[in-house]
């Protein structure tokens, strides 16, 4: 339900924001974003020589009076900003207290709401794709399966503030499970997009295959990429000690480790090293990067961190 994702007060505050795109919108659809395209708006862009067949209504008569030559006034076309949210819905996102996936959906809802409020087109791409029903029929009823299938379809392209409720509803229906392939999902999303825009990646970035290829594809396609890495508190500071046999929820791989409190610092150092590498990678490619724990306050992220980083303003 929408209430479970974002509180009304938060929604009200989010309405004040607009996504800040550093690049001109490249969409073909008209919207409220400045673009390089010339078209109809109130923003004067340039003059050009009249050629036969041009609309007389855009002739600059004042200039003709001074120079006795025909010039055409060009105006900037305002286009929409396509916003693509890559939502990690893999098994690893179901961990944490609160669940990382729940937190990610809240962030997705907030970004989506801001985008919808700014008349931008939003598409949410949960990955991995929903598996064929035959594989999951033991765990999910056909109704639920179809509902989620419909919701995923409904999230492909949403526009206009009036669609916000439906948008939230569809987000709420999503479930997480299965192994993620971050690189493949991002690359496919980059290729599928007809126009580059803003890409927001909500994931834990704990993919053994890495993240570099996917992010490079997005950046290369011309997306302005924002990353929110969501980690569970347990992943940052484990509370289980002793002789452990750890089972990877996605790959099923096992890792035997003997872990005591004395090694907590070393582990946290490893986490910091990992985050630092990711951060440096993003900085090198102009990607906004945020790391949050799933138990941090949503307002803190949305109203402070994203705003300070000028994701929106």
């Amino acid at each position: 339900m929408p209430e479970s994702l974002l509180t009304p007060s938060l929604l009200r505050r989010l309405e004040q924001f607009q996504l800040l795109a550093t690049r001109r919108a490249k969409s073909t659809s008209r919207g409220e974003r400045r673009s390089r395209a010339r078209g109809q708006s109130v923003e004067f862009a340039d003059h050009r020589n009249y050629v036969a067949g041009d609309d007389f209504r855009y002739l600059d008569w004042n200039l003709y009076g001074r120079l006795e030559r025909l010039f055409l006034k060009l105006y900037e076309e305002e286009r929409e900003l396509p916003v693509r949210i890559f939502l990690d819905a893999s098994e690893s996102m179901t961990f944490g207290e609160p669940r990382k996936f729940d937190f990610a959906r809240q962030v997705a809802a907030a970004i989506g709401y801001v985008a919808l409020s700014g008349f931008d087109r939003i598409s949410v791409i949960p990955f991995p794709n929903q598996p064929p029903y035959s594989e999951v029929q033991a765990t999910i009823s056909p109704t639920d399966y179809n509902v989620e299938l419909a919701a995923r379809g409904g999230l492909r392209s949403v526009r206009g503030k009036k669609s916000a409720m439906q948008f939230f509803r569809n987000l709420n229906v999503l479930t997480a499970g299965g192994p993620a392939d971050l690189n493949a999902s991002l690359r496919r999303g980059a290729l599928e997009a007809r126009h580059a825009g803003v890409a927001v990646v909500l994931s834990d970035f704990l993919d053994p295959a890495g993240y570099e290829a996917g992010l490079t594809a997005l950046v290369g396609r011309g997306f302005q990429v924002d990353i929110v890495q969501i980690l569970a508190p347990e992943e940052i500071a484990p509370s289980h000690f002793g002789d452990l046999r750890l089972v990877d929820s996605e790959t099923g791989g096992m890792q035997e480790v003997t872990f005591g409190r004395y090694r907590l610092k070393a582990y946290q150092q490893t986490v910091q090293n990992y985050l630092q590498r990711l951060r440096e990678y993003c900085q090198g490619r102009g990607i906004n990067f945020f790391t949050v724990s799933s138990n941090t306050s949503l307002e803190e992220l949305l109203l402070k961190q994203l705003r300070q980083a000028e994701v929106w303003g």
Partner: protein
Amino acid sequence: MNFLAPAAFLFAISLPVVVVFYLLKRKRVVKLVSSTLLWQKFLSETQASAPFQRLRKNWLLILQLILLALAVLALSRPFFATKTKPAQLRVVILDASASMQATDESPSRFEKARSEALKWVDGLANNDQMVILQAGANTEVKQSATSEKAALRRALQSCVCSDGPTRLVPALRMADSLVRDQRSAEIHLFSDGAVPELNEFENKALPLVYHRVGKNSNNLGIIALDVRANPENARQRAVYTSVANFTSNSVQTDLELWLEDKLLETRPLNIPAGETSPQVFVAQQDKDGVFTLKLSAKDDLAADNQASITSLLPKPVKVLLVSRGNRLLEKALRATPEVELATANDLTDAGTVFDFVVLDDVAPTVWPKGNVLAFHVTNTNWVENVTRIEAPAIVDWRSAHPLLRYAGLDNVQVMESLAAKAPSWAVSLVDSPQAPIILAGELGRQRIIWIGFDVLESNWPLRVSFPIFIANAVDWLNPANAKSAQLLVKPGDPFRLALAQPEKSANITMPSGTTRTVEVDPKANEFVFGDTLKQGIYRIHIGTNDMSFCADLLDNAESNIKPREELQLGKFTKVTATKMQRTNMELWRTIASIGLLMLMAEWWYYHRRTV
């Protein structure tokens, strides 16, 4: 291959312990996590990526360093040098006499002394040598000089405590000869000090170190035992005994008299501290047997709580008097109980059917082979350089000799006597200023009393001492008495038995009940049995004869088990008990034990910190 410290193999017990550590399966808790990616990175980062890393404070490291240091320390075999000076040769004398069986030290003085001596073996430096002597009834060299600790330990372990008295003199004499020319040598005596006189060593400056064992003197012992015919009734036997109380309190005990397996009498005794209680038992005896006395009181030394003696019934003494007629002598002989006297003018055979022969001023045709009491005869086989002296004055006589017991020669005058210098086989009993006139001794196995004068040429027969002397002589010359004396030996002393005819073997039942068969040399005319270390009754079956002999301690000095603080060597020299510890007190065993504990602590810590 030899091992200096075979006991160290006990550490092999730790090998299975290590295996057990590894057998213990580490139980891992299975935990489902979102991703193992970070863990993999964590493990790869903490594993060695560079040959060296900064040294961090790690208790495991410290424990292992300590462990290694302890192992190195143990291997270096450190020791505490005590005040004892180093000695290149140490002669260890282990007292193995009966008093060392006292149980005031746990488990006994002998074991305590042995363990002390073993410590000295442990403390032996690599190039030093040691000799092990066991001083019991005989001195035994258990190990000649060696540095081999294993051999020395083995020698000490093979020492056995006997029931016999201490004979320290031969042991010290041997030790003295071993250390005499050594520059730095010591004699270590492990004893309770219950030893006889050591006057011999007064001026020898023995490098003697006396290690005293024993704490107190809680002992009651039978120190004397004899059996004779009852003087008041010759048909009865009288058993004479003395029980000494060496404790510091008066003791009540029961003294039991057994004849073979029959209890004859139980007598309650109350002996004050330090006193000796002489007791006489009178008993009927129908045949030869063994009287046994037992003390019921419990004390620290059991060896002297029981004593046995073989009692042979008196038999008539067959005596042949070869004389030209001497009524006084004949009367004196006949007056002696049990004597069956025969008289003759001359001796034509060896006189072997008689127990002894009396030669009275005759020169027999055949000299007797048995025991002889000879008056005024000259036999150059017995005495040489016989001279005649007129009216010899009797100036001295040996009153301690059994022959002159209660027979003083006061007021005895002799008209004329033969005199001879005492030969090697005899001692002088009565001396004139010129030469001895009465000799007694044992020549071969023949006991001879030689009296230089004819009694009829003296006033001796008129003196009371004469019949007493004759009675003493009958006792002394009677082979049966000598035989019965042979039937009581000290533990450790050999038992001797004259053989009338050649024998091949003898069966001996030991006090413990075991039976041994001993080969006898058919040419030997004497049977000797030496394994009498244990006291008690030994029963012998040899040829057609059955007999018993007894080994008894009966030693006042040995029963007095009070540990002596000092050993008196003569009048002016004494050796005080040392409190010296063994030198070179080795520590490696202790260190190795601590190391083992450290190892366990390390294991415990390693597992604890992962939880």
